[in-house]
């Protein structure tokens, strides 16, 4: 329903209605053609369509080009340390169930320096949207090899070509116990990008989205033919997956029927190398959530707290021996 709201809607709106403007701030300083732009507007649209109050929404990031993201959101934001978006995002969410959290991370940020936190954030399964801006390169520091750079990538740290096979972020995430939502999309298929982030925002747990992102400055060739040729996108189709309008669906020449409950199939599709599978690879809404644990026992009043400590102190007390 909310999907149908138009920006130019003429019906009188209640005071509390938020428009796209409420979620934006400043002018993004990303390069022209950078995938960041469409991701930003998609997130803003999702926030608007779900009518997230901006003051109840937090965008958290690490460091990198992609991690500039919170500065362009009209919500609360936290632009922290390289690799450490997840611990901060989890700390925010743990005892504030009322906040909507987006965790923004780059491929170096998530899969290299922050890889330890990535594993654990997936396992904590706190409700938030985790967006991996995967451009296969270190953007901010100007073209060093990233853990997701394809084998042989020429970079400033490997001028002769990178020597190790890349990490597959989908496969890695699928391998972490308690993973509950793994999806893939691209920055250039905006309809799918929007639908994926929307689905992620509605997921009751940690929704991990790998966004295949173009970096015209340093990886001009990486997705050149992919983005130009729709044949290279493989649409994962399912009733309970990420669904586009039939018209938009018809544009995909390669379609795979995939049930997102099937983790083994998801792992198989994650290995596809002659194209980019997009859609929901895996979802499980039943997994335990660490934020539900964090949200219990909140807001105890001072009287009860005092009582609690006093009773505890009783165990350590020696009565005055002079009375």
């Amino acid at each position, binding site marked *: 329903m909310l999907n149908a709201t138009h920006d130019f809607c003429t019906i009188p709106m209640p005071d509390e209605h938020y428009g796209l403007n409420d979620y934006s701030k400043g002018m993004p300083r990303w390069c022209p053609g950078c995938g960041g732009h469409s991701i930003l507007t998609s997130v803003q649209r999702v926030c608007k369509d779900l009518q997230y109050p901006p003051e109840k929404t937090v965008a*958290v990031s690490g460091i990198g080009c992609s991690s500039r993201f919170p500065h362009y959101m009209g919500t609360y934001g936290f632009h922290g340390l390289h690799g*450490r978006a997840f611990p901060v995002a989890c700390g925010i969410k743990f005892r504030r169930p009322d*906040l909507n959290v987006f965790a923004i991370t780059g491929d170096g940020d998530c899969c290299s320096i922050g890889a330890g936190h990535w594993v654990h954030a997936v396992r904590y399964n706190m409700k938030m949207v985790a967006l991996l801006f995967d451009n296969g390169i270190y953007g901010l520091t100007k073209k060093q090899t990233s853990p997701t750079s394809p084998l042989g990538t020429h970079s400033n740290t490997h001028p002769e070509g990178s020597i190790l096979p890349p990490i597959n972020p989908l496969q890695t995430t699928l391998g972490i116990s308690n993973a509950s939502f793994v999806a893939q999309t691209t920055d250039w298929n905006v309809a799918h990008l929007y639908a994926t982030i929307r689905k992620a925002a509605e997921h009751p747990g940690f929704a991990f989205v790998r966004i295949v992102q173009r970096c015209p400055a340093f990886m001009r060739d990486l997705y050149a033919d992919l983005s130009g040729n729709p044949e290279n996108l493989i649409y994962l189709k399912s009733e309970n997956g990420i669904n586009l309008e039939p018209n938009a669906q018809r544009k995909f020449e390669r379609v795979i029927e995939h049930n997102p409950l099937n983790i083994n199939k998801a792992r198989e599709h994650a290995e596809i190398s002659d194209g980019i599978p997009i859609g929901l690879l895996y979802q499980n809404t039943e997994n335990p959530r660490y934020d539900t644990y964090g949200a219990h026992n909140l807001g105890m009043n001072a009287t009860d707290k005092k009582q609690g400590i006093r009773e505890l102190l009783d165990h350590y007390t020696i009565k005055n021996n002079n009375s």
Partner: protein
Amino acid sequence: MDKHFHSTVNVDDTNRLVDLKQVDETIIEIVSDSGEGAQKCGQSLGAISAKMGNGVWTVEIIPAEIQPPARSREGASGIRVRIGSSKVTNMGNHANLVVALNEQVIYGRLRQDAYNANTLMLLENKWASHVSEDIRIQYKEAVNEFRQIGIEVFEIPMEEECLKLIPDARKGKNMWALGLICYMYSRNMDLAADQIKLIFKKKSQAIIDLNILLLKAGYKWAQNNLSYHFEIPPIAVDHDQVVMNGNEALSLGIMAAGIELCSMYPITPATSVSHHLAEHFHKVGGIIHQAEDEIAAMGFAIGASFAGRTPVTVTSGPGLALKTEFLGLAVMAEIPLVIINVQRGGPSTGLPTKVEQSDLLAAMYGQAGDAPKIVLAASTIEECFHFVILARKLAESFRTPVILLSDANLATGVQPFTRPNIKTEWFAPPYDQSPWQAGVSPFDWNPETGLSKRPIPGQKGGMYTVTGLAHGSSGEVAYQPEVNQNSAESRSRKMASFQRTLKPPKINGDSEGDLLIVGWGSTLGAIQEAVQQARNEDLKVSSIHLKFLFPIVPGLVEIFARFKKVVTFEINYSDTPGHPMITQENRRYAQLASYLRANTLCNIDCFSNVHGQPMSPDKIYYRIKQELSEEQSNLSHLK
């Protein structure tokens, strides 16, 4: 300490009438291989004594490994308990009594100067008739060696006596030994039985009964066989007290501060704070998060604080090192947060279970860039409790991280203190969710104090982005020279404004004299005891103890000027002058000394070592005499 064991004993001579002698205090050690329950025995002795109204201080003797080889010298595991008729503030000097379950562990403690000719030793004698000839010889040689030092050694059939009651003497000998000590020092046996019920509360009634039986058997045996019988009169106190160790005090302080989240990663000797919290935190609406590492623990706490929840993170040296980048962010982004560092020996993994005060400079200066923050150090168990509440308040008022330093000595030391009267104003208030005042920026730095108010997510109209990048008052990234200068200045001003609220430290002793000792942290009790001893001999020595380390307390230059010599006493490394490689110029000073020299331009000396042990009053006292005689000879040299 005078020798209060002087009569000889005849083990066969039973049922004699023994005089009850009063002593002001005693130091008892129980040592064994690890896993034999010596610590449980000593902790119980401490608790019983505290409940009887005695002053108490306990120090655990912990081998670095969990299961060192049996009968190894380095494997000494146990506890020291100092019990007195007045307040006890430190571990004291040589032990009066040691109860040892094997002779080899004694060597380890002798090397640490724990015993001397005044020490009485009650030694398990089963080794004398051990099947292994090697062990029999080792035992015999050791006993001879101890006697040559002048230690009175009594060989006690502990195993034999315990086997009369239980099939495996390893499990229960500690309570038999407790009974023995209870007789020797007239401990209240009802309290002792209660204590057993408490420590075995999760075990079956049969186990409780058996341990009480062992306790009574030990008591009875001592009554029949030992001629030592003492009394340590209690202190008269007219108020309720609590007795606990420093880590329990930190944990209770965390609760009393209204902290709602402890985000941590296990590390000795800080871990037991989180164990205590894990058991009790829910009673005050708190929760523990065991993070994947210390970096994450810190980031998680910072996230929680940003979102208005009041967190603490608890760690030790290596963990503090991992937290440094986030600490810099917390300073830069002005995020209130309490970081507790229970110091151990360093650098690196260092001495995990032993005391050191080597993280002072790391706490003050350990971050990249200019990152001023408040650093406090607790010097008593009581301060472990109250300083968390203080640190929490300071963090919020000054919008800054606050590091609270404790150490391995305070962590396991047990001491009674006045029962705190919990106050609502100690609790962190609920976070503000009212609309943010229009027109006020998120870093609206007061030009005089540097202070500003922060918006909390949920506050309408307060939306801003925290960043570790240089930023202006609205939080916007800004690299202009004057903006960066101004924001750095504002963060620094907060320290100055806090410093202006502090008072000069109290002087222990006269306000002028020949020697001033400056200490910080857990050495307080030992320093004061040594100073008292020296002052009793009319030596003109005083001491001050610093609790606020950063920013520096006011009035120091003036205090230092009134003493001929100022020396810091610290448990950290400094070069000893006199070595051929060490010159006036290259000598590295102890950490507080370096800091005070730099900030006061006074010629402050230091006495320090990294022996991994608390400083004993004896060592401090001898050093005081040495410092004063050096001073004397320097003066006469000048004449």
